[in-house]
């Protein structure tokens, strides 16, 4: 009970922190819209040549692009979530403050990051998506149940995304400067989430592999639920399994890190 209220307060704080930077949000909306336009035209050219590529028709492919732009910031596919801050806190030693609080480090940052994600879904996701739906031929479900299932998949994707980035951030305990790891994670996230091309497009073993990796939970899985290409419950199970595995791994690494912790600085 009490703990629930604490993490709700942390999440609310995460939401409001990002809400204070209006210029950054506006710039992000603009960037997502432009990026979406470029991708849409690329996809249209591609699907002109190869209709039904990856099992999507043109309208579905266009919908996929705008979904990607809506989720890019929220699911922190290109990074930009709590992990930069946590790494910086580990590097400077400020993490000492997080550690002596009577709160769980992982839950704290999970709550803060979900608050951020909720803001970015609303603040940065809705406008580019509406823009795409308005000016392009998209395919959207009419049944509210599908939208609800899509939202569940989005939230699960956010938790999986957190799980990956938490591991990336904790690497800073050993590496001091986690920039290299963060860049690799960014690259993997961009490609393996299906941000560049839907993962359905990749043939054979490569396709199987990327679809089984956790990153597919971030974009491919919610998109397939919305487009009616995947069974909702099976998708949830896949995402939840990754979420649990990654959070458990995060806990293990966290306890190893805090046991050997050399809190930087005097």
């Amino acid at each position: 009970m009490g703990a629930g209220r604490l993490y709700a307060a942390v999440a609310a704080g995460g939401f409001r922190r990002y809400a204070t930077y209006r210029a950054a949000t506006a710039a992000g909306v603009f960037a997502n819209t432009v990026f979406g336009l470029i991708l849409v035209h690329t996809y249209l050219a591609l699907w002109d040549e190869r209709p039904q590529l990856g099992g999507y028709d043109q309208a579905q492919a266009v919908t996929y692009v705008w979904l990607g732009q809506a989720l890019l910031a929220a699911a922190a596919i290109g990074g930009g979530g709590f992990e930069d801050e946590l790494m910086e806190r580990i590097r400077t030693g400020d993490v000492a403050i997080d550690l002596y609080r009577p709160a769980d480090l992982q839950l704290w940052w999970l709550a803060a990051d979900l608050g951020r994600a909720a803001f970015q879904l609303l603040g940065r996701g809705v406008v580019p998506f509406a823009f795409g739906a308005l000016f392009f031929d998209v395919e959207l479900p009419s049944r509210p149940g599908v939208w609800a299932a899509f939202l569940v998949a989005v939230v699960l994707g956010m938790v999986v995304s957190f799980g990956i980035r938490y591991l990336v951030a904790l690497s800073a305990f050993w590496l001091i400067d986690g920039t290299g790891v963060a860049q690799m994670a960014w690259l993997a996230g961009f490609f393996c989430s299906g941000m560049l091309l839907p993962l359905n497009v990749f043939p054979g073993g490569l396709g199987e592999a990327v679809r089984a990796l956790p990153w597919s939970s971030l974009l491919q899985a919610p998109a397939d639920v919305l487009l009616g290409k995947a069974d909702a419950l099976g998708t949830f199970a896949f995402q939840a399994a990754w979420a649990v595995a990654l959070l458990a791994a995060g806990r293990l690494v966290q306890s190893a890190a805090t046991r050997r912790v050399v809190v930087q600085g005097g």
Partner: protein
Amino acid sequence: MDSAGDSAFGDGAFIEVDRVEKVFDVRRKTGFLKRERRQVRAVDSISFTVPRGEMVGYIGPNGAGKSTTIKMLTGILTPSGGRLRVAGIDPSRERSRLAHRIGVVFGQRTTLWWDLPLIDSYRLTHRMYRIPDARYRANLDRCVELLELGALLDVPVRQLSLGQRMRGDIAAALLHDPEVLYLDEPTIGLDVVSKARVRAFLRDLNAERGTTVLLTTHDLQDIEQLCSRVMVIDQGRLMYDGPLAGLHEAGESERTLVVDLERELPPIDAPAPARVVRVEGPRQWLAFPAAQSAAPLVARIAAEYPLVDLSVREPDIEAVIAKMYEERATA
């Protein structure tokens, strides 16, 4: 009562540190692939106890082991050896339980939420420590009044000045009524007015609430104005534990009287043990024992010399410790 039930130090010992050590493994690159492992003793067999309600200064030069000790007392570092109890709790084993009973202020770091108004951090503290609503409101009102935070509550923390932020941090550490407060350099970087305000608040807190305070600082004035007892640590070892006056004796520390005369004169003939240590034009520097009053010396100079101006300089911690070393080396 849950205080020091298993204490070996008798009743009233609120903080017990018994032969505590902290050894860090440091790996250093010595060649292309060769690494040398070296052990650094940040804290080397330190023992002390602090009774409930005492205000203790914990001083020493940079890297002496002060912050390491504080981190062990909060539970975020585990001692490599020895025994440590705060309110009868082993900090590193029961960090969360202890957290409800201690408050911590790191002068160079902030617990406040950078982008959000000050009040948001306090609301979060309210939830984090599960403070009953009435008590939270009473404590917040009190801190806001005494630390003059009223106008700052709705200001984002990033816009606060250092002094304002420090007062904000001190309030955040006290909302849950901690029995002990660790202050790590609480006046670092503050101007004179802000320092005075922080010190006055801490003095009242200790007097009215009986909060035990452990204070690390570089500023001897913090200690002089707040602490009846001081512990000096250097290179991980406790060098001195006692009243501040005794520290001056132990270190035979000296204050400096800077005298500006009307004109250049030969060195002032001062009564021993005071003596002139430097002359530069009309300005002369006299050293005299820190434990001794400056008044007779000043009176005598004023009576016998054409005095224009004077000032007294307190010894700093580094000088006192350096003196202590000299003492030991020659003893």
